[in-house]
């Protein structure tokens, strides 16, 4: 099923498997290094095979898929926005994904500025003068899309890798673009 040819995404939360059954001794957690090892080797190979733009496009799409499934399965989407954000902040902290902070929320126009500190993807990477959290861009957009039922875009404007010590994202309703 995983290797089935297809032109649509069919990933669901169930594809992650039953970890209680599958890893009774080793448990749920793995070190961040192994997460990054996976992400940055895939990125490296995708860039050599497909080029930077296509690789980033794929990473964003994957992030979006993950964000939407994460929201659907780990968050209560019936909450009001502020409660939802508080819940998201709590879950991301508990799961050691990052420290979410909302800087601005314009609910009328659906425009937001968020930061993620100690980000799983990039915190501590060497400064390379570029933003590199494309997976987070997709992940955040996916969460917003799943929560609101509308299309969103998340764009990273500051990144640890660009020397900013914090990852800052501008999240807008897609119609704005």
């Amino acid at each position: 099923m995983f290797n089935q040819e297809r032109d649509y995404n069919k990933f669901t939360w169930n594809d992650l498997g039953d970890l209680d059954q599958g890893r009774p001794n080793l448990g749920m957690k793995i070190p961040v290094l192994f997460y990054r090892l996976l992400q940055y080797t895939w990125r490296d190979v995708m860039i050599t095979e497909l080029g930077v733009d296509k690789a980033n496009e794929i990473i964003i799409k994957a992030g979006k898929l993950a964000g939407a499934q994460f929201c659907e399965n780990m968050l209560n989407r019936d909450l009001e926005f502020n409660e939802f954000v508080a819940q998201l902040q709590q879950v991301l902290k508990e799961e050691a994904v990052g420290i979410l902070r909302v800087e601005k929320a314009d609910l009328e126009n659906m425009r937001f500025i968020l930061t993620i500190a100690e980000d799983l993807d990039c915190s501590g990477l060497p400064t390379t003068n570029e933003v590199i959290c494309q997976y987070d861009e997709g992940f955040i957009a996916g969460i917003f899309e799943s929560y609101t039922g509308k299309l969103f875009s998340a764009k990273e404007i500051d990144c640890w890798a660009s020397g900013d010590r914090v990852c800052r994202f501008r999240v807008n309703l897609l119609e704005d673009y």
Partner: protein
Amino acid sequence: MIEESIEKLATLLQGKIPDKIETEIITNEEHRHLATMLNQIFEFMQETHEFIEPLSKGDLHEISMQPKNFLSSPFKELHSRLRHLTWQTEQVAQGDYNQRVDFMGDFSEAFNSMITALDNNEKQLKRKIDELEKALTHIKTLEGLLPICANCKKIRVDDDNPKDQKSWSQIEAFLTKKTNAQFTHTICPECMKKLYPDFSQG
């Protein structure tokens, strides 16, 4: 060039941002490289200074800074945290007590305790208001003029027909209906004397 660089660095150490060194006129390649790097430091210092000054006055407007300015990055982080706190405080002011500050040391603890205290106080106040409103409702049920029979002390219910005997009820029945009070019957000493003189002597 070295003399000019020392002069510029001295200016910087005196708290002023010096003008950049003119690199185009330097012929020695190593000197030009050094001057370029010094200029970069001056630029970073200027940018950092321009950022911190409004920040120190509480101005949290959006800022843009060139990447790799490592001097500014801790301030950018601080700026981000302050903007987040501002947003959270706004939400708390609107009555949202779900907000929590994470990983900001003693401040997190103080802020989170404040939110919990505000939440508890508001809940307590709401409970008190609720109790008072209920008491007020009881008071209202008994306020105003009550028509009472001068002889048998029966009370006429609300606006019922005064000529209809069914409109009149015993005071116990009236109060039980209007309030949560319940009655238990006994006999006062004076009535005891009248009704049961033999028993009342002791």
